[in-house]
């Protein structure tokens, strides 16, 4: 009855990912109190992206999913990138006209 696409990960795999996520939460909290200048936001978002990847790949089973699903996910994130970057190009350059 079990089909070949039916991947069952071990509890150990999930537990390791879970512990890693908790450690990353402690690290991101502690590092925010250290003065890294403009790098603070880069580190905070970098850790957040790593946590997102762990959740998506392991908990959301992207590493077992079809290529079509992966294309949809990456495509969706690309659209989010367009939303934020295009909005920023507008706001960041508004002063240029009046200046």
């Amino acid at each position, binding site marked *: 009855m079990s*089909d070949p696409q039916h991947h069952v990960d071990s509890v150990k795999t999930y*537990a390791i990912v*879970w512990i890693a996520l908790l450690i990353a939460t402690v690290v*991101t909290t502690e590092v*925010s109190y250290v003065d890294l200048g403009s790098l603070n936001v880069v580190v905070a978002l970098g850790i957040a992206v790593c946590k997102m990847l762990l959740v*998506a790949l392991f908990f959301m089973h992207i590493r077992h999913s*079809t290529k079509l699903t992966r294309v*949809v996910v990456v495509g*969706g994130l690309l659209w989010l990138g367009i939303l934020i970057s295009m909005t*920023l190009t507008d706001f960041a350059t508004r002063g240029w006209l009046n200046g």
Partner: protein
Amino acid sequence: MASSVHTESHAESPALREQFNTAAQQKDASGLGMWIFLITEVMFFGGLFAAYTIYRSSFPDIFGAASRTLNTTIGAVNTAVLLCSSFTMVLAVRAGQLGKRKQIAVFLILTLILGLVFLGVKAYEWDQKFIEHHVPGPSFHMEGVPDQGHAQLFFSLYFAMTGLHALHMVVGAGLLTWLLIENSRGKFSADYYTPIDMIGLYWHFVDVIWIFLFPLLYLIDRYLKS
């Protein structure tokens, strides 16, 4: 005629509806549909993240000062609670894959409890905002900030983003309750656990949103205070 009889028996199983060739194909289709829905959710939250990015880059000092009024410890603990709930959720999906109904129930209940703990802590935090007059509106006041308007902007985004996130948690809690009822009726097995799988994806998605909200709202320029 024989084929119509075949189709009828075919349609009776939730694990293999008649429009699909195989159970694996049906599972893939469900997953793809759920991901497309989650992408629309990403764009929904994306608008708020874009607004946040613009206003934080426009008023970095005020956003930093307003962010430092939030309690990092409570935020971090709540993040941990949510991550634990994702762990128990994925174990519920795993129990579904193995067709273990008792395990499904245990892990769904744990996920539900952790989700409610998160909402409880969130409610306490919001209550503190009312006590501290940090809720945007006529009674808003933040100490030591000359520009009250832009400080309210931070808290408007804070309430909009955490509020929308909490709303998703409430919906998630409702979905978990529904799963528990369906599970007690014996609807799920190793051949058919798609609803657990899909609601699992939703729950993890809500977790991912919080993974970004926590550093963006709580951890701005913390080092300036310490």
